[in-house]
């Protein structure tokens, strides 16, 4: 009690530093964003997707300068208040400031023009889907203490396997199944190598990535590109609008007008959260990841738990791979996953090895990514390569601020020897 009272009365050095930092951010916002604006300028944000015309919302038109002043004032006020009284939740503090900054940036970039805000948010979720699936694969494997950096490779193989079977069988669902199964298969190989033979987990993962890049590119240039009608033309899962829910303004088009894989991803996030934290299986998985010896002593089959979790993870990554082909463009091209598997691993770490965290950080990646695309369309005077870094920079800033230090499972990456 006494210490707490003290800390509210005498501002600690850290608090003052944070407060000053916020004031500086507010100042920078006004320096960066205000000079380019003119009085009376407005920014228009579209709130409708053309496809969802049930309830049409009017476009949101904001007066640029007034909005910017308000946002700057909020940040400055937060800084001053934090210095004077202290704000308990660093998460809330950071969230509000980040929101103000992003909003100010958007309003500044859109000044005198219009931007489809809802479109940007919709593509954020879609863009986040493969990243989230990769991250979820990582979460479930690493919760059982098996590091899997071969996710990128698994996704690449699943992408190719699913598009080929879907084209041959003329059924997207068979393609999806094969994609998931091929993911499971590669993950099983990884599990076998690292659990049974205690091969270094990183080395095995790297090998999977090299193997996947080589094989898929080889098969692609040898067969897929020459017989693309037969082997490489699957079509994509259609958009499914959920009745009623998709009619809700803003939320509807974002969450309830997507294709199958996006829905599956959201379901997996929820299911995995429940399984990991509210079932005996989840408890055992986490026990195996934190202290396998103790788990073993209590009669948990450590190896079995690890095998099953890694293979389930592989199935999720397989689904992620199928997204690239069946869920997005309906064809395979060399190295088309373009590093999304690795970004997924980053999302897992930023998400602190739990499903909801991984999903949130994937969403931030997705948001920053589609923000970047929109900024290029608005011709913001920032080089495109810098804008291309935005997803990574934003994720690092927001999540280091929000999450603090990420703590991996204690036994992560260590083979278990009885």
């Amino acid at each position, binding site marked *: 009690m006494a210490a707490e009272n003290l800390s509210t009365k005498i501002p600690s050095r850290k608090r003052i530093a944070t407060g000053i930092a916020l004031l500086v951010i507010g100042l920078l916002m006004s320096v960066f964003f205000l000079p380019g604006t003119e009085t009376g300028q407005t920014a228009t944000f579209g709130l409708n997707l053309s496809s969802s015309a049930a309830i049409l919302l009017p476009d949101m038109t904001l007066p640029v300068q007034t909005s910017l002043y308000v946002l700057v004032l909020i940040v400055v006020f937060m800084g001053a208040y934090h210095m004077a009284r202290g704000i308990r939740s660093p998460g809330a503090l950071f969230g509000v400031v980040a929101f103000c900054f992003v909003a100010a940036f958007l309003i500044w970039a859109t000044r005198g023009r219009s*931007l489809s805000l809802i*479109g940007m948010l919709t593509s954020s979720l879609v863009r986040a889907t*493969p990243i989230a699936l990769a991250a979820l694969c990582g979460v479930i494997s690493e919760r059982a203490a098996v590091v899997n950096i071969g996710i990128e490779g698994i996704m690449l193989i699943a992408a190719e396997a699913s598009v080929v079977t879907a084209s041959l069988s003329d059924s997207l669902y068979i393609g999806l199944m094969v994609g998931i199964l091929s993911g499971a298969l590669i993950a099983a190989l990884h599990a076998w190598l690292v659990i049974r033979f205690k091969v270094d987990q990183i080395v095995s993962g790297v090998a999977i990535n090299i193997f*996947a890049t*080589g094989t898929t590119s080889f098969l692609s240039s040898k067969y897929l590109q020459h017989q693309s009608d037969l082997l490489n033309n699957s079509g994509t899962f259609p958009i499914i609008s959920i009745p009623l829910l998709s009619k809700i303004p803003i939320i509807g088009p974002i969450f309830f007008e997507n294709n199958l894989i996006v829905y599956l991803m959201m379901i997996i996030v929820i299911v995995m959260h429940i399984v990991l934290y509210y079932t005996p299986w989840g408890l055992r998985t986490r026990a195996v990841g934190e202290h396998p010896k103790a788990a073993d002593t209590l009669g948990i089959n450590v190896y079995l738990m690890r095998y099953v979790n890694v293979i389930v993870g592989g199935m999720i990554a397989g689904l992620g791979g199928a997204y690239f082909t069946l869920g997005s463009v309906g064809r395979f091209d060399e190295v088309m996953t373009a590093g999304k598997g690795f970004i997924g691993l980053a999302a897992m770490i930023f998400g602190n090895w739990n499903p909801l965290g991984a999903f949130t950080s994937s969403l931030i990646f997705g948001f920053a990514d589609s923000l970047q695309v929109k900024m290029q369309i608005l011709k913001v005077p920032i080089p495109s390569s810098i804008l291309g870094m935005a997803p990574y920079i934003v994720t690092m800033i927001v999540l280091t601020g929000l999450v603090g230090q990420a703590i991996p499972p204690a036994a992560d990456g260590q083979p278990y020897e009885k």
Partner: protein
Amino acid sequence: MKKLYFVFAIVLIASMALAACQPKPVEQPAPAEPAATEAPAATEAPAPTEPPAPVIKVGQVTDMGGIDDKSFNASAWKGVQDAVTEFGIEGKYLESQQQSDYAKNIQQYLDEGTDLIVTVGFLLGVDTAKTALANPDQKMAIVDYTFPDCWPGAEVGVQCGTDQELPNVRGLAFQTDQASFLAGYLAAGMTKSGKVATYGGLPIPTVTIFMKGFEAGVKYYNQQKGTNVEVLGWNTATGEGSFTNNFESLDDGRAQAESFVQEGADIILPVAGPVGLGSAAYCKETGSCLIIGVDADWYDTAPEYKDILLTSVLKKIDVAVFDTIKDVVEGNFTGGTVVYTIADGGVDIAPFHEFDDDVSAELKAELEAIKAALIDGSLTVDGVLGQ
């Protein structure tokens, strides 16, 4: 335990071997009779039956896009294959997986005594210049690049190839903006929403020249018709535009198209190799946009998207490579720069195919007139852009 590492090592080696399968030189043997141009039969190269006269050897080095990029590598390879059929020369290609492969692949051809080395793309400029300077008798050609390429202050041999003319290298350049000017005019005439879009893979000159011509074409349409068609994704005056920053991720191409459509565009020109196919997939799925293909006629190379393919901006790299090989065969090879323009048919736009009925006769006539004006020089891209 050791045995198990052995198993693991086998897996690793197997994967590397598979990866290595790709850059293996694929021979296109000199055929006795005109051979099929598709898919070189890699494994069993039939020994040529009549060996006497030394066969002219041509070797192509691709950039990282690979031989099947449906873009300039594939197009250059088609030129080599055509020459193989026509002149009975020997044609090979080597794929580069990374930057460090460029010099290595060129060196391999030097060691083999290849008559003409064709390098493809901007990224191979420096290595091509170095090889040409060190081997003044080696004939070379580079697609999409010209020498001298150094600008004041650039570090020779690192940032750029050379600051002098290279008599043994032919730079094959394309005035692509003339063709995409036509595409831009066409797009402006066809758009229903009043907005058209373009994006590139990387902000490099050979990509942005397409976007520049496209913008100019739209601007010219606006000047002529008093309309106000807007170009999303590129602005020549500021040099800013939309780029996916890769030539690989089709999903990025899809996202670009989706984003453009959200902002109201209904015709898109993707200048990003295979990434553009992602945009085509989006347009096909939603039916909300049309695509203009680049480099080759996508009606032939990506027929699954013919329903949404308005036209393609053709850049006939195959013709340029073929001409170069022809000159080598006939002993007329010269270095320097050869610029292919709309006048000689090196760049053009493809037929409208499925959309032939939708493009009005008036618009077609206007396009013909513009083409004639571009050829006789009374209309220039830079002139329209006011530069």
